[in-house]
């Protein structure tokens, strides 16, 4: 399985990757993107099985990246990992086609639950 991690913070991408490992999902291939625009490009070239994306990023934010992908007919499972976990943001994410939203700060358990929910088994 291949997971695309999109976040403008390199430190946060490292934390997400570490947390995936702690959640028992450390065996997946990881691809990294620094913003939403790069994430869209990498989804098209790398065909990941899941996208874990920050919301608030320069160039293109996460929700616009998701809408761009869905507008192009791409149905890759897409989850947000973001500091903004309000009901309003969760509703916007769901309406745009996101599978889940993990709020920062997070736990390995939250990752395992979300990934299991989209059918990714621990590796």
């Amino acid at each position, binding site marked *: 399985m291949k997971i695309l991690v999109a976040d403008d*913070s390199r*430190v*946060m991408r490292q934390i997400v990757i*570490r947390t995936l490992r702690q959640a028992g999902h450390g065996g997946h291939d990881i691809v990294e993107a620094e913003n939403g625009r790069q994430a869209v490009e990498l989804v098209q070239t790398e065909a990941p099985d899941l996208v874990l994306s920050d919301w*608030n990023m320069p160039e293109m934010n996460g929700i616009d990246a998701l809408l761009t992908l869905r507008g192009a007919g791409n149905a890759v499972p897409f989850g947000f990992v973001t*500091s*903004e*976990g309000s009901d309003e943001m969760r509703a916007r994410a769901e309406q745009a086609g996101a599978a889940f939203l993990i709020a920062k*700060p997070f736990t390995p358990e939250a990752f395992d639950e979300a990934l299991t929910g989209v059918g990714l088994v621990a590796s």
Partner: protein
Amino acid sequence: MSTLAPSALDLEALVTDMWASFVGSPELLLPAGPPADDVALWSATVTVTGEWRGMVSVDLAEAAVLGVTRGMLGFGEDEEPDAASCTDAVGELVNVVGGNVKSLMPGPSSLSLPVVSRGAVELPSEMTEASVLHLDWCGAPVRVRVLTAHSS
């Protein structure tokens, strides 16, 4: 007046959770007084604009910046993070605090990208301190503030 703001207790719970999740240090964040005037601080801010308007700042002494960055990157004590990593790490701290503060306040609103400064930042004159949390981590001061606009 837009004086609605999270309490210091809300901030403390949030910062404690964030430290446990990202920094992963066994060293506790302890209540403390304000940082001394002669302590050089890194400052990071985000702004929230919309139904609720405010600013969140996180200020840390250099030793705390280095410790936080080591923790977030999984570095050992003998590894020295570079300035770009420190800036990235401190920016992510304020981003998480700001996003959570935004979620506690009335919406809709937008969160800015973080601005990080190695040194004190000049806060906008229209902003007033609404909540403040003074902490000590491994002997280094950590300050978290929520500022709100005079009028909305």
